[in-house]
Each structure stands twice: as structure tokens, then as C-alpha cells.
């Protein structure tokens, strides 16, 4: 009577500290340029080398430009951080997929796409969206830089077992509703802190029916409701996705792995500290109106009236909608947008780009809107070009850029200007996230694509 989480967790316990955390063994460690330099420095200060360099995969994603990647990075501090990663990886024998490498891309896109991410593993990265990898039935979670150093030094972490939540989603999705809408809907119901302290398993017929890309979108945003991570039991869809991937097991190894992977599901009598049931039919295309991902509504909905918000939370609510320059009780549909950003580790995979392309084919973007399509990896970029999606985007007036985190966070050159509205397929609408004073509406790639055509928040169902 074990849950999926417990099965994976127990296999990785090296030691249990009495009345304390467990020593958890980590199978895979992803690193990027922002949260690793201090960890390497700490390690060197202790006179240590990376303990298991072969279990680490590194990439540069947060600071990289998404145009002219063959040129040196213009911004000095960004360039130095990327150079520090290159130097550190070389010194410690860590494989780096840096700029220009055919495997480069956003860390949470390349791990799965290369087959580094596999069912039953423990996976960490100094990045909160590490939860993405849970879509494969792995325990995957974000850590801080001190913990990055611990894993580099010992391949272990001290972790207390989280509480377990299961979210069951059953039934058929409505037309125009995709996995991003499912997760935005869940967060809007349970709030940006509703799953703090929990590890979430997503289950039910709706989830089973989703592709791996769509599952990753859901697990990716687990952290936006406070959860440590999210996971989905592996199944035929998972195995089919992994088969033949560059680093996936091959031949006999594959057969052996498959036997183990097939044991990874929650037993029927597994216990959860909390269970939530959702009927897929109630989910509409979603959009956020505020400055945390829990502030979302169906695209035809309204912002809450002030008196619908509990009193203690009103100051935060008002501050948030003031930042967004939206009025309490007003409709969100029809709001003008200035930028459309389709990218980030939430929605920058082939399926996302194909979804957008098939919708915009033969259509034109609205005049005053700037549209950026930023593939999650080099592999996605090349594949998109091979399939001719670049032509479709170009004809529509969209810009297909090069892989990186881009406008998901205001750290590289791609920033949304102050006061402008961006409909974004990323995962965070925090104040200033996309650039100082930028305003973000989070939505699915489909809802973002319609907005690119109409120049305003629109309901994709009117077009289907």
C-alpha cells in the first residue's frame, strides 16, 4: 500500500536521522549558470572536487540572448556568469551543453528531450521548476545553491518527507482547453500556497490521456501552488516518448529498466494526506489577471469584486490589481495586449509550437502586437524549421527566436517594457518578472496565439 512517491523515495534513502530528515540519494543533477557559481566556489573552498560528475548535466539558459547566439553575449555580467559555468564544468569534468551546442536549451526542456530524465529517479536542480521532470514518475524538485553544493559534494541531500496530495482529474476536456488551462485552473482553486508542504501526484483519466509534453506543463507549475514537486505515474505514453532518446537506456538495459518502471504507480490502497477531485468538463480556457499564478479565471470571467475577497487579503488584492492597472469586478476578455510571449520551460516544446502554428496558419498578427516564439531548445528550434513552422510564423508576423529562458524572467535582453501587457505562456506573473513594471497575463499557447491575432485577450473557442 504505497504511493508512487513513497516507492521512489524509499529506494533512495541512504540513512534516516533519528527525529530528523532522511539522507536522500540523488540520481541526476541539472545545473545552470545562475545558481551554480557559488556552489562550485564553496566546493573549491573546501578543497573538494565534484563527487559524481557523470550524474550532472549543465546548460546555459537564463542569461543567453535569443538572437545572434553566435556572437559574444553583450551584457558583461551575463557573459561572465556563462563563462564561469564553462570554466567550472571544465575543471570538474561536468558535461556542458552550452551556447552553440546542438543539445543546448532550457534545462527543463533538454533533460526530458535527451532522455536524461527517467522514471523512478530522484532529480534536482537549483531551479524551482525542476518539478517538470516529475511528469516521468521521478521525484524532482528545486533546491537552493547550498543544496547544489551538497549534491556536488556528496550526491545526497537532507530531506524531510513531504506530505502527499493527489489531484484526480477525470473526463474529457472541452474544445480549446489544454493542459496549461488544467494547471492554471487547479492553482486558481487551491491558491498560490495551497500545496505548500506537499508533493503532488496528478492522476485520473484526463491525465492519462495527455501527451508527455502536456504532462510536463502540468508538473512544471506544481511549484506555483507551493508544492515541492508534482509527479505522474509512467505508462505507455512515457515509454514511447523515451524510447530511442539520446541518453535513454538501450537494448537489454531498456528491457531491464522497463520492468522497474512498470512497478511505479500508487497502489489502490495508498494513503494521501489530501485528495482533490476535478471534473475536466468544468475547466475553461484560463487567464491570470493578478501578480501571482493563483489569481486566474476563465477567459470569459471577471476579476473578483473587492468584497468577494476576504478582508485580511484585500490590501494585497488591491495592490496587485493596481499594479496590473485593472479594476475589481471588470471583465478580462477584450483587454489590449502589447506583447505575446510563447516560450519558457512551461510551454516551449514541439507540441506547443505545433499547436500555435496550426492555429495561426494563414492568419496575421494584430498590428501593434509584438510576438516572440522562443523554442525551449536547439532540438526544438531545428525540428520547427524542418517542419516548416518558421514559414508559418514568419507569414503571420511572428518572430521565431533562438532557445533560452527569454522573456520568462527579466534577466537577459528579452524584457517587456514598463507598463506594457504581455500575454505569456510562462509560469509566473509576479511584479517585474518579465521586466521592471511589466504586466503579465499567463495563458495557454492557444489563448496566447489568439491574442496575437486579435491584439486583445480573446476566447479561443470563438475561433474553433
Amino acid at each position, binding site marked *: 500500500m504505497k504511493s508512487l512517491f513513497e516507492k521512489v523515495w524509499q529506494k*533512495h534513502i*541512504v540513512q534516516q*536521522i533519528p*527525529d*530528523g*530528515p532522511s*539522507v536522500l*540519494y540523488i540520481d541526476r543533477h541539472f545545473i545552470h549558470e*545562475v*545558481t551554480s*557559481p*557559488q556552489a562550485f*566556489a*564553496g566546493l573549491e573552498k573546501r578543497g573538494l572536487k565534484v563527487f559524481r560528475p557523470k550524474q550532472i548535466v549543465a546548460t546555459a539558459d*537564463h542569461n543567453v540572448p535569443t538572437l545572434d547566439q553566435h556572437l559574444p553575449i553583450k551584457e558583461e*555580467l*551575463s557573459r*561572465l*556568469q556563462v563563462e*564561469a559555468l564553462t570554466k567550472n564544468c571544465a575543471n570538474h569534468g561536468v558535461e556542458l551543453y552550452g551556447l552553440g551546442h546542438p543539445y543546448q536549451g532550457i534545462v527543463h526542456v533538454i533533460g526530458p528531450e535527451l532522455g536524461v530524465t527517467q522514471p523512478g529517479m530522484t532529480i534536482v536542480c*537549483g*531551479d*524551482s521548476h525542476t518539478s517538470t521532470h516529475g511528469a516521468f514518475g521521478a521525484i524532482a524538485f*528545486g*533546491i*537552493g*545553491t*547550498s*543544496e547544489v*553544493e*551538497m549534491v556536488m*559534494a*556528496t*550526491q*545526497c*541531500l*537532507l530531506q*524531510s518527507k*513531504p506530505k502527499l496530495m493527489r489531484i484526480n482529474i477525470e473526463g474529457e476536456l472541452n474544445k480549446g482547453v489544454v493542459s496549461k488551462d488544467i494547471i492554471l485552473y487547479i492553482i486558481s482553486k487551491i491558491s*498560490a*500556497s495551497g500545496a*505548500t*508542504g506537499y508533493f503532488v501526484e496528478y492522476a485520473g483519466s484526463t491525465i492519462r490521456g495527455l501527451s508527455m509534453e502536456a504532462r510536463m506543463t502540468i508538473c512544471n507549475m506544481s511549484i506555483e501552488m*507551493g508544492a*515541492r514537486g508534482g509527479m505522474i505515474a509512467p505508462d505507455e505514453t512515457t515509454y514511447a516518448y523515451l524510447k530511442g532518446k539520446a541518453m535513454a537506456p538501450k537494448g537489454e538495459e531498456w528491457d531491464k529498466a522497463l520492468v522497474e518502471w512498470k512497478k511505479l504507480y500508487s497502489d489502490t490502497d495508498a494513503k494521501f494526506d489530501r485528495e482533490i477531485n476535478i471534473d475536466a468538463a468544468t475547466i475553461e480556457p484560463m487567464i491570470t489577471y493578478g501578480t*501571482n499564478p493563483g489569481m486566474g479565471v476563465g477567459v470569459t470571467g471577471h476579476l473578483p469584486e473587492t468584497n468577494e475577497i476576504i478582508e*485580511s*487579503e484585500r*490590501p*494585497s488584492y488591491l*495592490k496587485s490589481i493596481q499594479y496590473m492597472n485593472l479594476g475589481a469586478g471588470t471583465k478580462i476578455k477584450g483587454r489590449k495586449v502589447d506583447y505575446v510571449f510563447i516560450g519558457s520551460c512551461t510551454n516551449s516544446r514541439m507540441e506547443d509550437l505545433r499547436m500555435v502554428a496550426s492555429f495561426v496558419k494563414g492568419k496575421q498578427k494584430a498590428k501593434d502586437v509584438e510576438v516572440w516564439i522562443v523554442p525551449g531548445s536547439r532540438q526544438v528550434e531545428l525540428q520547427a524549421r524542418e517542419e516548416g513552422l518558421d514559414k508559418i510564423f514568419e507569414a503571420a508576423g511572428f518572430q521565431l527566436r533562438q532557445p533560452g529562458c527569454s522573456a520568462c*524572467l*527579466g*534577466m537577459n535582453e528579452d524584457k517587456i517594457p514598463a507598463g506594457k501587457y504581455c500575454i505569456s505562456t510562462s509560469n*509566473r506573473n*509576479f*511584479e*517585474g*518578472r518579465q521586466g*521592471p513594471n511589466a504586466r503579465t497575463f499567463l495563458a495557454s499557447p492557444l489563448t496566447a496565439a489568439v491574442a496575437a491575432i486579435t491584439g486583445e485577450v480573446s476566447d479561443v473557442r470563438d475561433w474553433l
Partner: protein
Amino acid sequence: MSKAINIIKNTCVPLRNENVDTDQIIPARFLKGTSRDGFGKNLFRDWRYENNDEAQPKKDFILNNPSFHGKILVAGKNFGCGSSREHAAWALKDAGFDVVVSSFFADIFKSNALNNFLLPVQVSDTFLQKIFAAVEADPTSLLEINLADQYIRIMATGEHESFEINHYKKTCLLNGYDDIDFLLSIKPDIEKFETQER
């Protein structure tokens, strides 16, 4: 940075905002350092300054109010949500804070704080409101945090509440140990574990 913590008696800065995410604590564009130092000057950068200009402090932001200062930050619920950036804990510590009090903390922030000897003290919503009231009435009010006995007290009124902390972490903080020292000490066990059939 490692420094043992036990009793802290100090004034505090009341930040009533809820859901303070780590992008507010330190915006992404200031994460480009390759050392742990110097992040304090960009703490709450976009709340502190108009147009990103240090010459234009925003008057209504609490950290710009000279009446309030101290080693304790008291914040609204769900503090530290969002990104896993440990820079948030470094920035708070660098700006002189040793304790953050809130009625709810995001998980990753909490472990990052503990790894940097920044003590997160979780209190009830009611107690949090009492602290806000006391400090706003008198900015010189002292709070006492006693880690060994696990309580927090408003000195002016004597009201107190106990807080929870994992026994292992408490020992680390009281003694100034960190997790890496411990993990390194069991390396032979880790190597043995790696060779076992799992």
C-alpha cells in the same frame, strides 16, 4: 556566513505584504553575481526605488522609513514563494536580517534560509497581527526570539507563542553546523549505498 543562533532580542521591520515572492526580494536582473556577497543592496529593489534609481527611494516603502529598522523582518503570509534562488536569503542576511517572522513560508525559501543561518519563525495569523500592531504603535518595540526554547515574545506586552523547528535543524543552528559537514562525514555510507542493488 555560518554563525550559531540562539537568543535574538531586537527591533523589527514590519512588511505587511502577503505572498512576497523571491522575485520581489531580489529581482532576476540582480542575480548575476558569482559570489554570495553584496546582494543586500538590491533587496526589494523595485519596491525600494522609483525607476530603478537609488536616488529616488519610494517614500511609502517600509525599508525606506527611518523609524523602522532591526535584525528581524516581520512579513505577511506565504513569504518567499516562487523561485528557488538562494540569493533571496543571501540578500536578507546581507541587509542585516537574522530572523524572518511570517505566518507561512514557502518550502524552498525556508530551507535556503536555514542553510544560511537566517531563522524563519512561523507564527499564527493572530500572533502576526499582534506583532504588526505592537511595532506600528511603537517602532522601538523589541521582539525576543529564543531558539533553544522555541518561543517568540513581544517584549512590550509579554505576549508569546511557541514555534516549531525540526530537531535536527535546531541543533545545527544552535551549534553553527551545516548540512554539508554532516553529509561529508557519512561519505563511506553513501559510497556503499551506491553499490547496493536497489
